[in-house]
């Protein structure tokens, strides 16, 4: 556990398992994962395709429920949450960034962000969120008029505008070239540092590990190694 962070974790996970299907057709995606994630941390989950990292991210984000194990968010048992509670949890606590951006094509950048700020408790202004990711001058463009990196930054602005406690990023640079990828990672880094948001990035790009406080490597549904960086690197120094 890093010394810099407080004692009460945002997520407390023990023996987390997720099995899809039943009997012979059962697919075990997670086989007992233990971890604690703290506020202000930047976490990288590394692993090949099918290692279970996306499943873990979905569990943390309340998109899916575990088959076994403990999954506590701020002491509350997420595994026992019903549909309505999970919806509220996602609405107020979690910001998602998807590999495919998932912007609404018929809404402008500003509107895509405002769509989410309309429904949450204490959001920042969409303009402020877009300025944070460096898109102050592209706010009225439709997704089709933005580059991939810009679209992903809109997605990040959309995720952080609600001032989430957790920012979950699923391969945020997966569809981007190096230079654009780095601007996106810088945006995530900035939010993590300035707002103290717990950021979890899943990737199969090991280079990203340098910018994390801690790096978990998953394989076959288990955490096979945990690495703690004594000093976090900066996103702009990354290269692949």
């Amino acid at each position, binding site marked *: 556990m890093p010394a810099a962070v407080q004692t009460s974790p945002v997520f407390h996970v023990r023996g987390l398992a997720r099995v899809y299907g039943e009997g012979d057709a059962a697919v075990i995606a997670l086989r007992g994962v233990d971890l604690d994630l703290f506020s202000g941390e930047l976490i990288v989950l590394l692993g090949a395709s099918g290692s279970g990292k996306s499943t873990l991210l979905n569990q943390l*984000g309340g998109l899916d429920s575990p088959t076994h194990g403990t999954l506590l968010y701020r002491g509350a048992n997420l595994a026992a949450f019903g549909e309505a509670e999970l919806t509220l949890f996602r609405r107020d606590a979690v910001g*998602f960034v998807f590999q495919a951006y998932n912007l609404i094509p018929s809404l402008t950048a500003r509107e895509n962000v405002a769509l*989410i700020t309309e429904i949450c408790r204490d959001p920042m202004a969409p303009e402020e969120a877009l300025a944070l990711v460096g898109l102050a001058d592209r706010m009225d463009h439709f997704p089709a008029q933005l580059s991939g990196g810009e679209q992903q930054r809109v997605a990040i602005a959309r995720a952080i505008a609600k001032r989430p406690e957790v920012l979950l990023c699923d391969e945020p640079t997966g569809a981007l070239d190096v230079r654009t990828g780095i601007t996106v990672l810088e945006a995530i880094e900035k939010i993590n540092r300035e707002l103290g948001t717990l950021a979890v990035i899943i990737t199969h790009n090991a280079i990203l590990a340098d910018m994390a406080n801690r790096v978990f490597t998953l394989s076959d549904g288990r955490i096979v190694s945990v690495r703690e960086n004594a000093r976090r690197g900066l996103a702009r120094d990354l290269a692949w």
Partner: protein
Amino acid sequence: MSLLDTKLLRDLRALRSQAIAVALVMACGLAMMIMTRSLILSLATTRDHYYEEHRFADVFARLKRAPNSVREELAAIPGVAHVQTGIAIQVTLDVPGLAEPAVGLINSLPERGEQVLNRLHVRSGRLPAGRTTVGELAVGEAFAEAHGLRPGDSIAAVLNGAKETFRLSGIVLSPEFIFEAPPGAALPDNKTYGVFWMPYRELATAFQLYGAFNNVSLTLAPGASEPAVIAAVNRLLAPYGGRGAYGRIDHASHRRVDDEIRVLVGLSVAFPLVFLSVAAFMVNSVMSRQIALQREQIAMLKACGFANRQVGAHYFKFSLAIVAGGVLAGALGGIVLGHQLVEMYHLFFRFPQLDFQLDARVLVFATAASAGAAFAGVAGAVRRAVRLPPAEAMRPEAPANFQPSLVERLGLARWFSASLRMALRNIQRRPVRSALTCLALALATAILIVPNSFRDGIAYVIDFQWDVVQRQTVTLSLVEPGPARALSDFKHLPGVVWAEPFRFVPIELRAGPITRRLTLQGLPERGTLSRVIDGEPRQLTLPPRGIVMSAKLAEVMQIKPGDEVVARVLEGREREIAVPVVGLAEDFAGTAAYMELDALNRLLLEGDRVSGAHVVLDRGHWGEFLSAVKRTPRIAGCIIKDSLREGFRKTTAESIGLLQKIYLLFATIVAFGIIYNSARISLSERARELATLRVLGFSRGEVGAVLVGELVLLTLAALPLGLVIGSGFAKGILTAVNTETVRLPLVLTPANYAFAVLVVAVASAASALFAARKVAGIDLVGALKAID
């Protein structure tokens, strides 16, 4: 407005052509429903209001002659509220500008005070002054309009053999003659038949009926039994030559309005419902597709904290917007068309005022029904979408499970090109969707059959009734049934080539509890002019015993050939006789019963008598013939067949024709809408696949063939099915609108089928062309990148 609503508006704009297609189909169904239901409301409330305001009677009776004192006895019958007695008499008219003689029914106005029942509505001028002046008549509006008569004009009538000239005091309407047609006629002929009113004293004096009456109207007290009152009236009037009392249901004008309402009821349900179901199916397919395309967006919304309810509501609003568009257009269309049709009803229904009244309940019902149908259509797709865990929805749909199509497995594959094989597999991959699209295309074909079957039915009736059944030039009727030698008098009129006698007698037919009043027609056993034709159609020979009746009459009386019916003669000596039904005749206007002339005369015990003759004329002597007829006081009526045919064309044919045109327009819109929509959905589902094919080196034509191939295959399967369903619709709707006064036969012509196929083919070709253009315009790189 929330941003989800902004998204909704922009998505709608992107989907506008499909949204418009669906809304139009819905609008057609709604317009039809609103139009017909509003017409029903307009006719029914106007009629009821008119009846109440002008005190339309409940029971009617004709008799030969009874002294006025009998009136008190009638009033004393338990259950009778008000009685009005008077004189009604048929006379021959000489109308300025009309070559042939016309027939007028002159009714008396009370000697003292106002009419108690069946009060007149004065349209212009005034009622005849009566006590101060003589020689005045009030004329019914339909006849006045047909001849351009105005108050102050003159008209000549033959009263009891003496020709007199009358001044028209005013133009009037009567609740008894909303439909101004001669008794027994299903069709109005306002040129040669009119209704008039004149003061009692003057009319009674002319016919030596002063102090007596031959016509009774009465109303029932609340709770009174109509059959009981009718029976009592019949008993009371029997000694005075009573011809049988009857209720409103047997009243010609009332019956005709009732039947029109029944026709509209038949049209207001089945057909619009087909349109609305098609629209619901289209909403469903558009929305399912839209939701499938927005899978990732839905997942994102859910991941970001939107509740299922909010996401569901968003897509419901989407379909609601389409429904709202459909309802708005449908209501407007229904109201505009309803106004037009109300105008048309003025042609043959005479009300003081017939205004279009919007049936607000049906508007609400129809809106709720289409919204419900649309929601039902969307609910499944929305439920599937929101049920999907967001994490799963974020990934593109798994590739569909394809198999070689059945046709290929049967070893026929080598006959098919790759494009056709892809089309076949695609159909087979989604059998339910393909079956539903095929059904929608079949419905598009089917609804085109119905309106044209109306048109063909009318054409058939016009030919059948006036070329096959009735082949005379004119029909002459005597004031009173006369001896058989009258026939030779007719034969000697100038220009007469051939004449055949007939004997008409009013009867009441009874089979079990069902009774009907109609004219029993005595005709030569195998006449050449007025013929009795069966359903084949072939001419029936009238046997020396028994009656032949309209198939429709047999149907409503629930009898079949071989059964016996009781016929009560309502003229002269009243008699009841049981006669066997020996055959069924096909006819389309009113119902009738036929008997061999001599057999009828034997039955009536009146010797060899005729009521008139059907006559064939040499047209060269037309003028001479007509003036001779006008000079013969014994001839009460002269009905020119061509005028009747023309009357039919102008009224029934015109009203059904207008409905037919509206329906055809709607059906064509719907057919185009369905086909266009199918092509659009197919295109949107396959854009990526088609782009891939293009990248792989397929030509535009080959790629287009995959898409168009599917549509063509489905259309080919749908066409025969559609023709069968359409024939069924036509049969069902014609059965629903068949009444005892007017019927249409089910006539399905190759031209009708060909038209339906042509419209569907043109719509398919246009949609295919559109799809092909879109295929040509596919952005190859973009389509491959796009998630959808």
